[in-house]
């Protein structure tokens, strides 16, 4: 069950990196139809043949771990299997159109987007949806801009956004980018929102409360109705961070819980590939009274024709064009394939998997009951545990977050693991816990690279070939 990775080591123990190799770089002069003073003098870049490049990138891929390499229970990231057919659909030649084409000539694209807006609205219990934000954090930013525009339209100047201390860092950063002061809300002893602290925090300055439900500890905020009342009574809006929506499909909808604005992470909930960190897409849903503030443009339909329109009091643009189209195609394909039954089952199995895995490992798991993810507490440094788990052929959980749990291992197996692979994961957890500290601290040893020195990387930043060349000369 060991997942063997390739290494860049040849017989002579030299690092072999063809794109770095001097003899493969070439300097050219940019001789052109332009005057010399408008062109550069030289350009030095790798100069490899196609076979060399194919081997280079194949080799690199062998030094990388994805969902198809093995279990990937990275908490809060919802690393699901990504169906293959969606790639083929997104590669359809008719999907590759220019965004400035006339609406008459891209009726297919617009219909797909219109349907996706509709589907996401139904799934989230929202009245209107924009597909423009190119990632979850961009969705948060767009959503908070909508909240701001709403308050301003009501003649109110509210300055604060409340965020639980266990929230994703993007919540804080997105609210700050929109110009809000961030008020951090401490958690209660049961890992949920401290309602009394919330009551004390809200007021006439409150623009919004940003919340994910279930929260980052995997706990459902059972007081959500009351929380919504507290925020709404103060004149604030309730924002739903969709990172954990995979736990609720078909069981609960943010709109029904009193949320006014939400974003969807289609790369999480709707199984579009995470692509090594992106692209994702972060559509935003809102209630009817906020629809007129959504970004420009929206996709509408009149007399059977699909069109683009600017909402009456639109916040404007959060992306140069319409967002990450190819990701949206894949999300639409995924939703259209699963339908009600499949989406609902995905949540059921995701929650079952988290609970089953938690029941099989010998770690302290505070709080509960939990939904699609749980946070285990390690007896030793959680980062060390994670490194040693790599040696057992699995990707480890998210470590050391949220801070409410000491040496946290935030674990989200998702619905795509079966009992056998969950048992494999449990074995990895428990073997590491039983090992002596020296072994764990020396890990990993069966991966492409051994433990990497993060401190020197930050202290002496070398961020390009050029910086390496300089360092090598020293």
């Amino acid at each position, binding site marked *: 069950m060991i997942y063997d990775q390739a290494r860049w080591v040849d017989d002579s123990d030299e690092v072999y990196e063809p794109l770095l190799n001097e003899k493969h770089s070439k300097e050219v002069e940019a001789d052109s139809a332009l005057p010399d003073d408008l062109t550069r003098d030289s350009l030095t870049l790798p100069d490899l043949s196609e076979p060399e490049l194919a081997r280079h990138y194949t080799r690199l891929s062998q030094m990388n771990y994805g969902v198809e390499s093995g279990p990937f229970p990275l908490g809060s990231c919802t690393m699901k299997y990504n169906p293959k057919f969606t790639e083929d659909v997104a590669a359809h030649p008719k999907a590759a159109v220019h965004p400035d084409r006339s609406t008459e*000539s*891209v009726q297919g694209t617009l219909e797909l987007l219109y349907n996706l807006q509709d589907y996401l609205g139904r799934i989230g219990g929202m009245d209107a949806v924009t597909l423009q934000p190119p990632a979850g954090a961009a969705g948060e930013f767009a959503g908070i801009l909508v909240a701001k525009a709403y308050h301003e339209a009501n003649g109110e100047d509210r300055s604060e956004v409340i965020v639980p201390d266990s929230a994703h860092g993007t919540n804080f950063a997105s609210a700050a980018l929109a110009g809000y002061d961030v008020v951090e809300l401490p958690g209660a002893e049961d890992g949920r929102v401290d309602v009394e602290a919330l009551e004390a925090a809200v007021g006439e300055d409150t623009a919004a409360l940003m919340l994910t439900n279930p929260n980052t500890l995997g706990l459902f905020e059972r007081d959500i109705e009351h929380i919504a009342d507290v925020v709404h009574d103060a004149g604030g809006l309730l924002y739903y961070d969709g990172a954990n929506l995979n736990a609720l499909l078909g069981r*609960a909808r943010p709109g029904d819980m009193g949320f006014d604005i939400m974003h969807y992470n289609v790369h999480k909930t709707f199984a579009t590939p995470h692509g090594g960190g992106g692209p994702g897409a972060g559509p935003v849903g809102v209630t009817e009274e906020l629809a007129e503030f959504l970004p420009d443009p929206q996709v509408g339909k009149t007399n059977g024709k699909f069109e683009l329109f600017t909402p009456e009091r639109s916040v404007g643009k959060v992306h140069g064009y319409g967002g990450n*189209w190819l990701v949206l195609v894949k999300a639409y394909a995924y939703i259209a394939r699963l339908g009600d039954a499949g989406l609902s089952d995905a949540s*059921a*199995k995701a929650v079952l998997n988290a609970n089953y895995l938690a029941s099989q490992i010998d770690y302290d798991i505070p709080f509960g009951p939990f939904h699609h993810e749980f946070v285990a507490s390690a007896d030793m440094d959680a980062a060390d545990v994670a490194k040693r788990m790599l040696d057992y052929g699995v990707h480890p959980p998210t470590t050391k*977050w949220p801070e409410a749990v000491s040496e946290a291992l935030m674990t989200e197996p998702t619905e795509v693991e079966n009992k056998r692979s969950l048992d494999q994961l449990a074995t990895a957890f428990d073997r590491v816990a039983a090992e002596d500290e020296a072994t764990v601290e020396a890990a990993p040893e069966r991966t492409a690279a051994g433990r990497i020195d993060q401190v020197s990387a930050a202290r002496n930043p070398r*961020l390009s*070939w050029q910086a390496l060349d300089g360092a090598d000369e020293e």
Partner: protein
Amino acid sequence: MSSDDTPVGSPYAPHTPEETAAMLDAVGVDSEEDLFDIPDAVRFDGEFGIDARGERATRTHLETLLKRNTDLTAFLGRGHYDHYVPSLVDHLSQRSEFLTSYTQYQPEVAQGFLQALFEYQSMLVELTGLEVANCSMYDAATALGEAATLANRVRSASGNVVLVPELLHEGRRGTLENYVAGSDLDVETYPMDAANADVEAIRDRMDDDVVMLYAESPTVRGTIEENLSALGGLADEHDAMFCLGTDVLALSLLQEPASVGADVVVGEAGSLGLGTAYGMGLGLFACREEFLRQVPGRLVGASEDAQGRRAYTLTLQTREQHIRRERATSNICTNQAWVALRTAMHVASLGPDGLVELANDCVTGARDLAERLDDVKGIKAPVDDRHHFREFVAHTDQPAAAVASDLETEGFAVTPVGEHEIQVCTTETNAHRRDALVEALGEVA
């Protein structure tokens, strides 16, 4: 279940009924529903009304939708470009170890992607001449927004004006407005002269209020900016950040940004590697080393592993939102890493000769097509007396909207940009239809 059976559950949850039963038993509940800790008052017991489909049926459904897009040869640009993407890029980037991985929080099992992103950063460092490049923003517009907030952080003076060209893509302008809305920054425009910056007007305007001077080359009208050194000098004199907007292919040919005083380079990197994708992009972001600790987005750095071998890792993460939260340099988390991988592959695939040749073709192709259109009755091209890159604006005696509409019935797409102006963009992907475009314009103009 065969691939075309309608799923009754998730087709991607591999549980057998026996496994499910065993797992429920181990957890100590009777059914999956017992695991949902949701109060009745907020429980959803309705249906979405979305029918499940088999894989083939789903695919047919989507292809049927997409086929409603009409066949047109697009001569469209304005910030979003169609270049031929080598098959190598599609095949290698689709390897699932790349495609289905996530952010490299465990670098020991992510060396492949980290090295590819390091190589992407290195290519941008070479192309821009600046010391630091991050490993992606969402697109050119958001990269510009991030540049403005960077200027606000790094500039010591108390100014609050971001000075941008009056001719600026509406998506970039709008996004910039939103990125600065939360700060005390104001966006102000400077005039243009034949689609280049009006240097004298900028000289008159420049004072200590200006935190960032932004220029583009090529501009939104496809002209190559001829005053970059002067603009860089003006920005420097007034301690303003000089930000240059461009794209990854133009960089291979045009003046090296560092040599004209650029402090930050933003723009579109997806012009290589992505192809036309209904506006999806890849924001490039590079800057001088002194801004390193204020850079938005992810950075990959070289380090060593425990055996002393070279290894790569995400670095300087204390700038990022997951650590610094509201004091982060940006809210970006999920970025465009896979697109950056594709762009790096495309650049490597072309190599230095191929890049320069392709960029040269963008100059000569636009010039030749403009000359030929200028011979068409009712058309004057190019409107701007400048060198062009890929695209140019042409004057039409007829109303531009009517010309564009008539061209569409002939199978061509161009952008009307004024009452009597259309913009035409040509690359190698529509080169074979240039003759036909000239002929069609002869009929409709």
